[in-house]
């Protein structure tokens, strides 16, 4: 009973703290907007959840299923970014050190945080359910509301997904090497796999996101009523070609067995949380134990100077060279070198090795493979470098040292941006040289634009948010939809022949200029924020 009380109060405090944050409010607003756009009116020329141009009429069953699958698929990515700061916040605020001195066990703490994550995400799902109901009535294709048809898809699909997201976020926060940007990247890859697996799952054990039964039912009924439309439903955005065809979908004949099978994922979420409690440092930040003996020895050697007493020198004998020059002169080349050093220092050797392999593959593989496969991965690799742009001063609390220098905007902003562009061009140099040599001018131009766009997006988002999370989220989502899945509109690097032919990359040039202005204003705002 005491444990339950502790759990409840931990969850409550954490939930209230987070739900009152501005970021939660913004996420809710964006979610409502997405629901609005995901159920387009009959006169709009695009479809979302559909099968070869046909969709169900907007009754409770269809609206509930469409939004529930959308939430399970798409919300599961931003949801992770939204909740992956439960432990981090306790570290930053210092509350963790107080918690560490209480009898609270690792398991209880992790469970409290996991439940708080889950309740927070389910609050958002509740908003989505209400939005779905509102949209059913707004679109007015069917005014009869069936609460069970509307809500059950959420309970089947979205609820276990959110429990999984809540526990995976806690696990990633607890495992030292996954707690930062690398973890976000790993989660993104897992998320991509989950979508692939779930949409084609034959068995509930493969259906992490709980999509398969809903999509299969949708497709079989659609094919039954309109045999000329064969295939499977897809959830995404596709243009409506020709007349819109709708059918009256009766929903899924839910059974308890289906729910029991699906809810086995809740047990998986608990196992993940239990695993997280094993890794959780319990606010002993010195605990992170190196994996091997060699690494331990290296770490000990590194720490040696800390343990040794400081040799007291005689300061009277040390004369400082007077500085008589007038400081403040811009030295862009030198500052650029320093920025590059700051960006690239501290990366593990294997990072450079893989970057080098991608450069070589860009040079030697056929142009088609380079464009479609090598290029996307080449520019996924430095995502953590870019995501630090404009955020270092806040993350490492160096703003007081940097912003008291002369002309902090003029002297540093452009070199910081250039640094990001150089990283893009350096990592993409294999493909760029290849395209230049083989006379692929269009592909080269697309890469040139892409290499400007990515760091500019990073700088703009980093400078306004003060951290790299939003960039990671937006960039990885764009990368997944555009360069990887070849959705032309977001293919900013020309990774598909179709988008190259359409000249999509050219639109990203003015976007880059606008983003650069936003980034510049962001830097000015960062400096003024302390005023």
């Amino acid at each position, binding site marked *: 009973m005491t444990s339950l009380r502790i759990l409840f109060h931990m969850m409550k405090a954490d939930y209230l703290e987070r739900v009152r944050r501005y970021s939660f409010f913004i996420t809710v607003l964006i979610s409502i907007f997405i629901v609005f756009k995901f159920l387009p009116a009959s006169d709009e020329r695009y479809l979302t959840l559909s099968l070869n141009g046909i969709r169900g009429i907007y009754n409770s069953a269809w609206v509930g299923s469409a939004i529930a699958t959308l939430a399970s698929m798409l919300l599961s990515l931003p949801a992770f970014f939204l909740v992956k700061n439960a432990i981090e916040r306790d570290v930053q605020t210092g509350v963790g050190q107080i918690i560490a001195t209480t009898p609270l066990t690792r398991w209880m703490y992790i469970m409290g945080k996991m439940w708080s994550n889950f309740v927070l995400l389910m609050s958002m799902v509740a908003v989505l359910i209400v939005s779905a109901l509102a949209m059913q009535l707004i679109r007015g294709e069917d005014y009869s509301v069936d609460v069970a048809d509307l809500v059950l898809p959420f309970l089947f699909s979205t609820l276990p997904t959110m429990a999984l997201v809540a526990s995976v976020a806690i696990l990633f926060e607890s495992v030292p090497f996954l707690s930062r940007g690398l973890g976000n990247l790993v989660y993104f890859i897992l998320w991509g796999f989950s979508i692939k697996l779930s949409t084609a799952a034959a068995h509930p054990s493969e259906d992490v996101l709980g999509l398969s039964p809903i999509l299969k039912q949708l497709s079989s009924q659609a094919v039954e009523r309109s045999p000329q439309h064969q295939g499977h439903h897809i959830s995404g955005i596709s243009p409506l070609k020709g007349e819109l065809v709708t059918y009256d979908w009766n929903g899924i004949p839910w059974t308890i067995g289906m729910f029991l099978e699906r809810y086995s994922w809740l047990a998986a979420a608990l196992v993940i949380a239990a695993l997280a409690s094993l890794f959780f440092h319990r606010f002993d930040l010195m605990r992170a134990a190196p994996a091997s003996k060699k690494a331990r020895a290296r770490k000990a050697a590194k720490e040696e100077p800390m343990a040794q007493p400081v*040799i007291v020198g005689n300061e009277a004998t040390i004369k400082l060279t007077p*500085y008589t020059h*007038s400081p*403040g002169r811009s030295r862009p080349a030198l500052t650029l*070198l320093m920025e590059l050093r*700051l960006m690239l220092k501290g990366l593990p050797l294997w990072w450079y090795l893989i970057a080098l392999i991608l450069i070589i593959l860009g040079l030697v593989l056929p142009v088609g493979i380079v464009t479609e496969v090598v290029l996307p991965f080449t520019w996924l690799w430095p995502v953590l470098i870019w995501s630090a742009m404009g955020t270092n001063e806040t993350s*490492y609390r160096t703003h007081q040292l940097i912003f*008291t220098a002369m002309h902090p905007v003029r002297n540093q902003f452009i070199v910081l941006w250039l640094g990001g562009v150089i990283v893009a061009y350096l990592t993409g140099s294999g493909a760029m040289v290849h395209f230049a040599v083989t006379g692929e001018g269009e592909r080269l131009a697309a890469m040139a634009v892409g290499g400007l766009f990515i760091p500019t997006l990073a700088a703009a988002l980093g400078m306004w948010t003060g951290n790299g999370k939003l960039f990671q989220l937006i960039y990885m989502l764009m990368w997944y939809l555009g360069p990887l899945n070849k959705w032309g509109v977001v293919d900013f690097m020309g990774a598909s022949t179709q988008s190259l032919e359409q000249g999509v990359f050219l639109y990203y040039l003015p976007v880059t200029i606008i983003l650069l202005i936003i980034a510049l204003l962001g830097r000015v705002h960062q400096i003024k924020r302390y005023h």
Partner: protein
Amino acid sequence: MELVIEGVSKKYKGDSYGLRDLSLQIGTGVLGLLGPNGAGKSTLMRILSTITKPTAGKISWNGVDITKDPNAIRRILGYLPQDFGVYPHLNAVEFLEYLASIRGLEPAIARKRIDELLHLVNLYEVRKKPLNSLSGGMKQRVGIAQALLNDPKLLIVDEPTVGLDPEERIRFRNLLSELSGERIVMLSTHIVSDVESTATDIAIVNQGKLVIQATPSELLAAAVGKVWEWVLPGPAWMEIRNQLLISSTVQGSDGVRIRVIADAQPSAESRLVNPTLEDAYLYFISAHKQLATV
């Protein structure tokens, strides 16, 4: 070389003030800025270092208004914030080189000064170690080195001895004294002993207002005849401890030796003693608090 602060205020949302109509005139030497926690010391430091702008008043450096032209002071400013971070993957040399480039220092001289400064702050031996492997005190010394990179004419140090061990603390005080010759050093602290040995001038602030600006000897003179000392048995001490302004207590075999600040003799057994700077500080802060409550 003169820094003049005229009627500076910093107002926050909800009618609360960080500073209220504060004026100071500062010449070469070390100005010790003393005050309790939350007195407005760090706000003043952040305004002087151009991080924050005042909501009212004017600050001029050699006649130039720095609120309008912050770069006028940034050229000659060295600033050690109370709370700052470092880039963990850089070493001390790289971090200082980075800051030197941001500040537009001549590379050759900057490199020479970085070497000398690392010797001066006793970090030369660990200069190649990543900053995340250094202790808190060592990082604080990196902060001291960066504040001196450009040979500043105005050196602002906010709670600089936090995290330093006693030996390093003394070294730092000596360093400040040495540096103060041809520049203005502003040392903000709530530890009186930090300014006792170094300050040529002291400003006491409380509740965002200036209480007094004077030399250490003037402050001591003002507290003469107001510091009393006597020994009390344990139980008697428990009775009076909340009634008097106590500067210090020392436990002894015959009871508790207490040091009290009072205008009149607090007890028949008490005798007048020479004030210390800590006594004077307490005297002024207490007088200011009483004035504020009237």
